[in-house]
């Protein structure tokens, strides 16, 4: 027992929180990477997450291609489509007010979601976890469904890997430098427009990967992205725009905070993230990890 709550229930909710936090972290990471370089708030992020889940679902339906190949193909497809969108449309808006980019990605989200809603309605389609990850493991103190453990571990690896790639590699150094002063980096001979395309592709691919990882957990539905993205934007506000590590840490912490609230005060669990957001906005408007704070 912990504060009068059975340990099982407590750990169970903590796990749910950690799972949600894993998706918040991956999605806010992608948003932060895109915002840092392109200075555009990618409103299409939730739709790209949903698109990733649907790529997995459709690969199975149409081509009988299973989860493991889909885990690679879904982020690839979403990333490539993202790059095409950036090159043909988004890149034309960089010289204008950032508001245009925001409106464009918002419109894009509506279009993508509209298409899938038209084709598949609003009800969720089940997508089974792969056999290798079905069942669960008794950890002694609790029962852990294997697929959920896999989600937590993959999310940690992806977030850590992305962070390391940005902090420790040459390409990451270009990215950081171009985030600070794109014109100067380009004047050094770096093809910054291509860097922007790759960044949008990477951010979109992260959303697609989160989508295919989420498919067996939440079901595949055209609305799965718009439900989640509202919370993710709150996460980004709490963490502060532009901080990669801040986005990841805040994602996990807010997921856990949501889980804990479900244990102690279930009525508030859907709004706790927004309450925290309001408090952070009052105390530190630039966010916990924001640069201007």
């Amino acid at each position, binding site marked *: 027992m912990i504060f009068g709550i059975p340990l099982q229930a407590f750990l169970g909710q903590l796990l749910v929180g950690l799972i949600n936090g894993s998706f918040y972290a991956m999605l806010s990471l992608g948003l932060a990477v895109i915002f840092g370089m392109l200075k555009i708030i990618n409103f299409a992020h939730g739709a790209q997450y949903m698109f990733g889940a649907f790529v997995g679902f459709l690969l199975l339906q149409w081509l009988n291609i299973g989860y493991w190949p889909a885990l690679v193909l879904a982020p690839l497809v979403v990333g490539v489509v993202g790059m095409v969108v950036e090159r043909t449309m988004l890149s034309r808006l960089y010289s204008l007010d950032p508001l245009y980019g925001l409106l464009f990605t918002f419109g894009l989200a509506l279009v993508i979601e509209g298409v899938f809603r038209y084709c598949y309605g609003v009800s969720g389609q089940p997508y089974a976890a792969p056999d290798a990850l079905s069942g669960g493991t008794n950890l002694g103190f609790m029962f852990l469904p294997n697929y959920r453990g896999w989600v937590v571990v993959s999310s940690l690896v992806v977030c850590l890997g992305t962070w390391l790639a940005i902090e420790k590699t*040459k390409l990451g*150094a*270009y990215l*950081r*430098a171009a*985030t*600070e*002063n794109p*014109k*100067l*980096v*380009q*004047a*050094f*001979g*770096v*093809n*910054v427009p291509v860097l922007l395309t790759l960044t949008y592709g990477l951010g979109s691919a992260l959303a697609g990967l989160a989508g295919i990882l989420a498919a067996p957990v939440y079901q595949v539905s055209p609305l799965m992205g718009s439900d989640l993205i509202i919370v993710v934007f709150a996460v980004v506000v709490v963490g502060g725009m532009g901080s990669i590590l801040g986005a990841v840490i805040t994602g996990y912490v807010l997921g856990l905070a949501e889980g804990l609230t479900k244990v102690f005060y279930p009525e508030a669990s859907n709004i706790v993230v927004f309450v925290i957001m309001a408090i952070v906005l009052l105390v530190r408007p630039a966010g916990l990890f924001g640069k201007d704070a």
Partner: protein
Amino acid sequence: MSEPLLALRGLNAWYGEGHALHGVDLDVFPGETVTLLGRNGVGKTTTLRAIMGLIRKRTGTTTFGGRDLMHMPLHHVARAGLGFVPEERGIFSTLSVDENLNLPPVVAPGGMSLDEIFTLFPNLKTRRNSQGTKLSGGEQQMLAMARMLRTGVKMLLLDEPTEGLAPVIVQRIGEVLAELKARGMTILLVEQNFRFARRIADRFYLMEHGKITASFPVGELDQRMALLGEVLGV
């Protein structure tokens, strides 16, 4: 005489509606060090930015090694062989000294090795792992110069490298420029401090209100002192 490496003809440039350069003519020959003098706000920085293509609203002609720079995408200018050391130095705060140093891509063979660079700038070696902007002003200036030397560019555009620095550092930068010149580097140096510039410059251009108003070799500097004193306010 040989062909100029860099040639500007009737270069005009604008910031929005603000007309900053009014027909600049300027040549820099291979291996030469040329200094562009002028008071604050006459358009020296603008000239360098217009050459690099950092300002796109410009007319006239700019050629480098015979190639037209006016229609070149920004990231091709460095690859053509021009290295830019901006007035504000442009050291990246999210990059370490090492990362700052290695950031600009190598554009041609013949650049300095890291060892040669660290011989020229020993301070940078001891601070390799520091955050770029944690360096002193003088060290940041050296880093801004050092990172262009790796790349094999044929010509450096230096914007007031001695501005706000202590005399010993100015001295050191003078030595480094002399060394670069001895190695055959072509240099366009923007300076207000012509006592510093006279030690390395072959020729001077004087700029006023976005135009070149005088041009003379270093040998004529003494007889131009009265004019310079008046125009530069020193």
